[in-house]
């Protein structure tokens, strides 16, 4: 059975430490925009931790929510791309083919989650920062859209390795850069088609919800609602 990569984000475990954000930058050659470009709204974070305030002092509440590309099954960004740069792979990923993208930016407008980022300029790394660039990941140039790929380079490397050793991919054998670095194990990545995998088990939990699920995008990222103290122990 083909893989179907998915992720579970346990909002009860997420502390908002943003280790995932920096890990993603390190793994996927995401350039820093610098102050003036960030001020003009061009900072790129393939995964971001959204924060919503509720209520006022003295009892304000905060909700953290890591948001990344949901790799939707019915992705609104796929039909609108005129050159098939954004399309759905057989393994359930919403792939962004950088060399095929001509930069109409329609996909980013159609995406309800705002998780697609555009290279307005050619990215720049002050030497020798470019020595940190990961050779397994393409360095995108100007005029191309980019987004979270579920660390596709790690998926491919693991698949090639498993194929070389003539064996099936085991759950937890590899994971995405953000899930690997998340101290409180809030991000769990794996193959949704593998019923024994932890992500499949958690994805079917009754705490599971889908971000903007009502739009019918069928995201492959499931958010587990934050628990409350009362119901867990006394409910």
């Amino acid at each position, binding site marked *: 059975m083909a893989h179907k990569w998915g992720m579970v984000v346990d909002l009860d475990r997420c502390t908002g430490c943003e280790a995932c954000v920096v890990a993603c930058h390190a793994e996927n050659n995401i350039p820093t925009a610098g102050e003036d470009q960030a001020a003009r*709204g061009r900072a790129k974070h393939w995964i971001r931790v959204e924060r919503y305030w509720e209520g006022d002092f003295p009892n304000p509440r905060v909700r953290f929510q890591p948001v990344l590309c949901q790799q939707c099954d019915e992705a609104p960004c796929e039909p609108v791309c005129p050159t*098939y740069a954004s399309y759905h792979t057989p393994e359930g990923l919403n792939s962004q083919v950088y060399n095929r993208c*001509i*930069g*109409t930016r329609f996909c980013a407008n*159609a995406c309800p989650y705002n998780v697609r*980022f555009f*290279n*307005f300029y050619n990215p720049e790394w002050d030497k020798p920062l470019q020595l940190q660039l990961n050779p397994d990941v393409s360095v995108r140039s100007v005029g191309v859209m980019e987004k979270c790929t579920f660390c596709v380079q790690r998926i491919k490397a693991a698949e090639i390795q498993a194929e070389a050793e003539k064996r099936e991919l085991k759950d937890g054998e590899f994971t995405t850069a953000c899930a690997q670095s998340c101290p409180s194990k809030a991000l769990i990545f794996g193959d949704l088609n593998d019923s024994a995998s932890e992500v499949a088990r958690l994805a079917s939990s009754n705490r599971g919800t889908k971000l*903007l699920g009502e739009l019918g995008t069928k995201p492959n990222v499931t958010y587990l609602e934050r628990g409350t103290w009362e119901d867990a122990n006394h409910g």
Partner: protein
Amino acid sequence: MQTTAEQIEQDLLRPLFHSSGKYWIAVAIATSLLLAGVAAFGYQLYAGIGVWGLNSPVFWAFDITNFVFWIGISHAGTLISAILRLTNATWRRPVTRCAEAITVFSVLIGAIIPLCHIGRPWLAYWMIPYPSERHIWPNFRSPLAWDFFAISTYLTGSTTFLYLPTIPDFAAVRDVSTGLRKKIYRVLALGWQGTPRQWQRLEVAMHIMAVVIVPVAVSVHTIVSWDFAMTLVPMWHSSIFGPYFVAGAIFSGIAALILAMALLRKFLHLEQYLRPIHFENLGKLLLTMSLLWFYFTFAERLTAWYGNSPPEMAVFWESIRKNFAPLFWTMVVCNFIIPVPILAIKRLRTITGTAIASATVVVGMWLERFLIVVPALEHKFLPYSWGTYRPTWVEDTLMASSFGMMALLYLLFSKFVPMISIWEMKVGLQSHAGVPMVAPAEGQVALEGPQ
């Protein structure tokens, strides 16, 4: 004084041979605007789209607004001249060519704008479905691919629709010009001799084109509206967008036509041909479209407000009360509150009255497209990732240069093609006066036409 056929020909051919000082200045201004735009595009190509004000989440702003604006302007041309030809409205004769010229040039500009606003314009040829050895085709499900086919069809359609009625006029110019000009117009006239068979075939061709161009025009702007309606973005994803955009297109198109005719009348001294009756009728048409536009806008905003879904309401309040409120209410004033009284009261519906109304409508309709695109993109579903947008000088220059290009094309057109179709005026003259057709003098073009 009753104008004779010779008088018509003499008046309408004069602009082709003598250009006044004011003409040259207009050309200079238009060219410098266009070149400024070319320079701005050169700089954008060199540095990247970052020179614009776009950011995430507002990935479209001026670029798509200008695109929809210019495609909108183009619709009046075909729709008016096609419908007037089909209904055989007698007052159509001086109006049709001005309208068709507006159509062709604004579709041309509308087609160029997307090429300039995509991230890697040198790969735009991937939109063309050529059989490539990479076994990859354009994505036919994408509204942008539909745009590509729709606009290219519409461009060819409206160019033919413009070219057909000018063939007899090219022949007329051919006969009165000498040297190089004669050679050019001989080619353009496609060997037109004015034989009855040619007239009959021209008439049938124009009739077919008039019938065909109307659905193409309506389909083009519906497809342009589907660039927005096919997404899930709040205040974009609604079924009203198709008719809303077509109505808006005709509305802004007629306004542009009235403006163009008023300017031509003044500069090319065509007072006898572009008479107040034309402005009267077009003014009434503009009035109906203004009311229709108000109806569509009100319906769209009311349904959004009544439904009260949080994402839609965020965009709704943004344009009604918050950052975009000034632009929104200027739009309503420009599109409804100024034009309707001017056009409704007969005394005010003069040439200058309709020109003023249509000037405000053109501005209002540009704002309307801007207010559809930007507030919705700024306030999509997740409030954390909302954005704000400010245009930069590059975008302003490109927009100004699109107007410069339109003006330049129109000025050059009026230098090479009589703005008002000579043979149609003559046909109108004869049928109007009830006098049977006068056989042409030897070697002269037989200028009679069908009854």
